[in-house]
């Protein structure tokens, strides 16, 4: 039986390829039916598909060694001698080209190719975006994909898109989604401009939940986190830079709330920057933020009657959830056009 197995793995190429072809096809179908049609969890289906493939493979090899037709090995071996055996002509060429192409796909930055396609596609869509819902949906998809895949769309195209989607006085309802997708993507680019914490900065790790609604230090979060799914998510809060008097120091407090560090033993002072990194939701409604860098968060603005006040605020790789309204429109414009963001936008004299 072992000798027949050897024959299967090394000599009987035709039987091997037929067996492997069917095994791959069956394992693929198993994965596709369970993962896509039945929508079962990917990890579990993957394990099952691998086990399935192993079982079929073992079955096929054992079946071959027990019942398969023996090949006329001597005749076959002659083909393996220097004069004889040839792999089908096309295979080496195809394999060589494939190998080169695979290597090229590793080294050529395909993100730039996608970026070029996206630039072209966005430029084509822009004239119709304000009025055609389908164009706005496409634009939303493009910016969502660009953010997810970290594709570098050119700044000029982003500015053009911003001008176009914010220009129309009576835009289609879907345009709002496009605006949000645009500022989400824009916040990805802010990582290059945002300051970084200094080496001696101190970081506090809070978990989202009851503790955060009444934090022990300088941040007055109030109802900043009220998303149950966020419970337990970490908040990394870093205070960085020189200690400054309150007016210049960083703060994140409700508008009209207690000034930063007023009750702190250090007196009415604070650090230059506050860095907040989390994947939880944080609320902007009625908050006064100054010199704050928010990273990776879901930034929520719900009530247009309570706009935030932003001064020198960076949103890096954030995802925005904003209720449409006059204040939200203005805020979205500020988020798109400025880094850091200041809101309300100061009027030039």
């Amino acid at each position: 039986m072992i000798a027949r197995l050897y024959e299967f793995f090394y000599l009987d190429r035709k039987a091997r390829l037929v067996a492997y072809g069917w095994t791959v096809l069956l394992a693929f179908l198993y994965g596709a039916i369970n993962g896509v049609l039945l929508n079962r969890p990917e990890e579990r289906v993957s394990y099952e598909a691998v086990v399935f493939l192993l079982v079929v493979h073992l079955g096929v090899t054992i079946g071959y060694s027990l019942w398969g037709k023996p090949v006329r090995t001597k005749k076959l071996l002659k083909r393996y001698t220097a004069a004889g055996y040839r792999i089908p002509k096309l295979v080496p060429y195809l394999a060589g080209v494939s190998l080169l192409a695979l290597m090229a796909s590793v080294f050529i930055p395909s993100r730039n190719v996608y970026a070029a396609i996206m630039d072209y596609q966005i430029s084509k869509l822009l004239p119709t975006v304000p009025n055609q819902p389908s164009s706005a949906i496409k634009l939303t998809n493009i910016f969502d994909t660009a953010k997810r895949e970290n594709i570098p769309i050119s700044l000029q195209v982003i500015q053009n898109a911003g001008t176009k989607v914010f220009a129309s006085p009576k835009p289609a309802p879907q345009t709002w989604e496009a605006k949000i997708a645009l500022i989400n993507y824009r916040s990805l680019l802010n990582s290059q401009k945002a300051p970084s914490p200094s080496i001696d900065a101190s970081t506090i790790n809070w978990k989202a939940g009851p503790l955060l609604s009444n934090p022990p230090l300088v941040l007055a979060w109030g109802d900043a986190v009220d998303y149950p799914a966020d419970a337990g998510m970490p908040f990394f809060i870093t205070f960085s830079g020189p200690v400054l008097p309150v007016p210049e120091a960083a703060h994140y407090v409700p508008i009209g709330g207690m000034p930063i560090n007023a009750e702190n033993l250090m007196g009415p002072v604070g650090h230059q920057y506050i860095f907040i990194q989390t994947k939880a939701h944080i609320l902007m409604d009625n908050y006064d933020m100054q010199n704050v860098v928010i990273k990776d968060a879901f930034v929520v603005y719900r009530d247009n009657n309570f706009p935030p006040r932003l001064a020198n605020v960076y949103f890096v790789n954030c995802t925005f959830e904003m209720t449409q309204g006059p204040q939200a429109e203005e805020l979205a414009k500020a988020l798109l056009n400025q880094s850091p963001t200041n809101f309300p936008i100061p009027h030039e004299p």
Partner: protein
Amino acid sequence: MAASAQPRPGFWSKIWHEKEPIVRTLIGDFAIFIIFLFLLTLVFLALRALGALGYAPARITILDRLHFYAYLAVYFMFLCDLIGKVAMYIYSNIFGKKIEAVRDR
């Protein structure tokens, strides 16, 4: 005088003569695996290009999942084959006679 003696095969030539069938089989199968991998990579690139063109992400996700299972099947098939080949090679070195019997059939 004896007929002109043929040059004795060198060390590497002996090894190549012994291993050639195995190496050829391995290269042949590997070439087919590479072609499949390349085709799957083409599909991957096509899916990304569709995304860049604004194709609905929900549909791309479905195609992406199908593509993932195809990758999975091809990779593991290649792995199983390689393990089988290595196992048979080791076995043939230990129990060479049985294998010789197959070859001489």
